[in-house]
């Protein structure tokens, strides 16, 4: 046992180094893409040949890409608004109201999180085609909203949960109507949470592939477009450049969402 203990304790000392290496491993793929996007070579491997921005410049000429980008933006914005609205409504109900089947409704709206995406994809495909909706951006919006509602519910139940009930009563006591209290007190205080929902839903929708793949039909979103380009080695560097941009945007949105989520917490918890 002593030999084992000695070995394990030496291993224990390596722990910080391991943790750092592991985290580096986690970032490896997303750092590699930007790296190669500036490399002057059609071959994606070491050694690097030279710095260039031509792959980025080349993106401007791809009309199909812009069309896909527009589709992605449209879908992401609309599904973010839908998911945030629906998520906020039910979060308010769950946090502040006692109604029958409250726990059940909460479980139901969190369900999309635990379902395998392939099942959601084929099921929606079957139903949408069955009722004649076809496969359009509209169907993708329905699917993406479904997917991101649980995120919004999670964020907003937390925001409302920490929201002091007395704040709304105080506003009414001071002369406001119920709507006035909502507008002047509640919404501003939970606004950071709402913004966080919008940003996260947007990001998830913008990057989402499987549901869009099954449901977007003739109007591909950006990830579906990228998928279609993967077969062509000649186009790879352009795809990498595009991918790098997307990674950057996603991370920026995430950082912004986190900032708003923290601000939301600061607003509501200190009302205690």
């Amino acid at each position, binding site marked *: 046992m002593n030999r084992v203990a000695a070995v394990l304790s030496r291993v224990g000392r390596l722990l910080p180094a391991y943790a750092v290496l592991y985290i580096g491993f986690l970032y490896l793929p997303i750092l590699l893409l930007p790296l190669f996007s500036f490399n002057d070579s059609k071959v994606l491997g070491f050694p690097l040949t030279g710095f260039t921005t031509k792959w980025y410049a080349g993106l401007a000429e791809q009309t199909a890409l812009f069309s896909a980008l527009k589709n992605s933006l449209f879908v992401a914005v609309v599904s973010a608004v839908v998911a945030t609205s629906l998520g906020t409504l039910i979060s308010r109900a769950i946090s502040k109201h006692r109604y029958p089947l409250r726990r059940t409704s909460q479980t139901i709206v969190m369900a999309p999180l635990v379902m395998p995406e392939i099942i959601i994809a084929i099921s929606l495909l079957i139903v949408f085609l069955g009722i004649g909706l076809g496969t359009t951006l509209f169907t993708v919006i329905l699917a993406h909203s479904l997917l991101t509602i649980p995120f919004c519910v999670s964020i907003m139940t937390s925001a409302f949960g920490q929201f*002091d009930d*007395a*704040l709304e*009563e*105080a*506003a*009414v*006591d*001071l*002369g*406001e*109507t119920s709507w006035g209290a909502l507008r*002047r*007190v509640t919404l*501003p*205080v939970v606004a950071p949470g709402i913004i966080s929902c919008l940003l996260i839903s947007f990001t998830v929708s913008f990057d989402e592939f499987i549901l869009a793949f099954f449901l977007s039909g003739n109007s591909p979103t950006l990830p579906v477009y990228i998928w279609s380009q993967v077969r062509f080695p000649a186009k790879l560097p352009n795809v990498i450049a595009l991918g790098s941009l997307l990674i950057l945007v996603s991370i920026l949105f995430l950082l912004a969402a986190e900032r708003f989520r923290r601000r939301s917490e*600061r*607003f*509501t918890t*200190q*009302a*205690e």
Partner: protein
Amino acid sequence: MDHKIAVNIANVSKSFGSFQAVRDVNLQLRQGEFFSLLGPSGCGKSTLLRMIAGFEDPSEGAIAIDGLPMEGTDANHRPTNMVFQSYAIFPHLNVEENIIFGLARSGLSRAEKREKASDMLSKVGLEGLGRRGAHELSGGQRQRVALARALVLEPKVLLLDEPMSALDKKLREQMQMELRALQRSVGITFLMVTHDQHEAMTISDRCGVMFEGRLAQVATPHELYQKPNTKQVADFIGGMNFFDGSIKANGGEKLDVELPWFGQVSVDAHGVSDGVGLPVTIGLRPERVHVGSRRPDGADVAVPARVIDRAFYGETIHYYLELEGRADPLIASVTNFERADHFEVGDPVWSGFRGGAAVALPRK
């Protein structure tokens, strides 16, 4: 003495489903007084407060403020304003914006509102802090902002829901005095709800004690302490020793009572009208119990006892005295004089009291 009535609560009851929170309460608050509603948690005092504010409607009865019936008037239109237990300071607004929040529909210009706010800030001792953010305020400061915010609207009655419960002890004592001074300077009726009887007694003109939805007694703090209406009230306001005895004679003002251990003693009848032979409970405050090494001179009755425990409170010492055969110890509170006798646990002592110091309590 003619008092103008600020709030008239007539036969008010409130039920939530099958639970009766408030039962048939009758109460009149006088213009300009500081009134406290006192009672243990769940006694209905907060519900009563909320009905006056307009957040709940009475199931029965009526509330009138300044003579005007309040039925059908929503909370936002009533001439009352409330300081909430958590203070409910709007976190997204600064101090000044919080204070002028209720003035939004007043038609005042921005400059007029700011002037009122700054006036109020001086009154509550927060001059110059108008630009402070809500999250930068200490507990005591938040309370003051809540007060300023409510008072700037010049309500007829200011309602306070356990305003001190969020503060630590030292701050609480300081704020109690400040609150009292503020009320005197503003001159309007204050109605405070609290479960802390010490706090209520210290700053109120009158207190109303509630148990289980009913108003048990309304009186000045002095009266409540000296002449509690019932055993429940007596026990709630400070500590009290209780003895069960039987009436030997009822002289209207005075009652002759036969007590175990002490024998016959004449006490304040305090409205007890029962006749000879009926049982009665006598209440005796700890500080009226004499403790000494010899039989006390000034006492009407005295018995030997033994010290079984003692508690040191700085200004006073509490002695727990065992009377032979009595289950509960007799509690005596003695001021901690240098020259007074100090007793140890186990010491034999004499204990007694003057009849006038004890009070009869009506049996409920």
